């Protein structure tokens, strides 16, 4: 798996409550691909997010391949996430004030 493929796969993981993929949301901080592992450093919108496990398992499911590299997901809250990390397309879909149509 290449880094490009990993990012493409992560763009298919949608936050179920917000309906926006986690890359557009700015939740993914880093992706490192090696021969044996795909390491994802990411965060969540809030530390007490009730969908924590769901999203992390979604990432593992999206990146996992039979016989492929191990998937390591690390959830961090430093630096903390803020809505400024959401892409403009995501903001429009959320109906954020000032995001336009």
């Amino acid at each position, binding site marked *: 798996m290449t880094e490009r493929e990993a990012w493409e796969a992560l763009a298919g993981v949608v936050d*179920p409550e*917000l*309906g926006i*993929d986690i*890359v557009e949301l700015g939740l993914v901080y880093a992706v490192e691909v090696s021969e044996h592992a795909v390491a994802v450093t990411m965060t969540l919108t809030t530390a*007490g997010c009730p969908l924590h496990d769901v999203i992390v398992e*979604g990432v593992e499911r999206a990146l996992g391949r039979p016989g492929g590299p191990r998937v390591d997901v690390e959830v961090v809250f430093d630096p903390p996430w803020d809505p400024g990390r959401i892409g403009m*397309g995501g903001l429009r879909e959320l109906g*954020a004030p000032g995001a336009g149509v």
Partner: protein
Amino acid sequence: MERQGTVGGPPWPLPVALLAAAALAQVAGAAALFVAAPDLAHGIGYGPAQLGAIHLLGLAFLTVAITGSLLQLVPVLLRQPLGTPIRGGVVGTALAAGSWALALGLWSGRSGVIATGGTLLVVGGAILVIDLALTLARAARAGTLGASGAGIAAAGFWFAVVLALGALMAANRIHPFLDVDRTHLIAAHAAVAIVGWIGGTIVSVALRLAPMFALAHGYRRGPGTAALVAWHSSVIPIAVGLGLGIAPVAAAGGALLLCACGLAGWYVADVARHRRRRVEAPLVHLVLGLTSAAAAVSIMLAAWAGVGNPYRAAIPAVLLAVVGMAAGITSGHLFKVVPMLVWTGRFAHLAGTPGAPRLSDLYPTALAAAEQIAFVAGLALLVGGTAAGSPTAARAGAALLVAAALAVAAAVATCVLRRPGPRATPPDHSAGTLSASIHPSIHTQET
């Protein structure tokens, strides 16, 4: 493959079943208000239908809904489980059955039914209070209590007081032994129940959830914490003042409660100003609810200051507090909490796969909009009609509230029964998302 609602939470059908039962009770409570509306408009606040309505709404709807919500939310808020799923089921069943029995017993005047309902409520309530206390103690040791936990602790204490007062009053109704003014005792019981247990819990949880649901950051947290402190601090002077018939003491508590409403409103306004998504039902009802609470307190403060009769003023004030604040905020959150529970239980295992259903597929947008319209119009007519002495307006308002309650129940049913299929196309938010994600250095948030 289905899974628990959240880490440490009970199997999702349990809280959903309680919330569904609560939604049906709201329909029954609103229907009871329809029956009681003419009496309310004529200034008769105490009667069989009125008792039935207030207990269907306060117990069978609100207390059962709060219980179902606590089973789900306490693990999220405090990172500690609340009891066990079996105990949760026992508590929910006892509270739901006891609520209906008590309400129907009070309406029909049947002592045996009242006693049965009261017993079930005490048993279920005692287990809940004990489990809550143990969970809060664990959270305190783990350092995860926070302001929300402290608010829930206070609300749990009030629930214990409400149960004790209610049990005393029910027993006294069957075999009179209390040498106290019954009207004052009822007023104190209602105050602790509405302001302390129901209002305290709802406001604690709603203020915590508001920024999460609104995707808000950068708002000021201080007013929210101050609001909770002021809210719970107001319960004792209000209850003592009403219980002993000392209006200035009750008024002092009322003034404190009004401050709490103002602080909470300030906090919610700041959250709304910093939101990054469109407004949904929980925020709409939270604003309406705080406004209703402030209006209720203002009416009573004016009455104690000599504007109108306090006993007459208490009717629209209680309606604003129970229906406008408590029922309204709870209904608004049902539109969000139930879809989240059902989705997590049924579709979480599809997360990360192409075409996985989203929460929005379960969110009943049209019903939520219809409910808000019917609720606001119904509340205005009911409260206005009782204040103005118009049975026709009061009944029309109650009818609209029945419609609003039916919309909530329909939304819950739709959410549980709907089985959305896989999405046909992957999500598309335009603006070059995919190319930006491939090259994170040129992602919009990096520029």
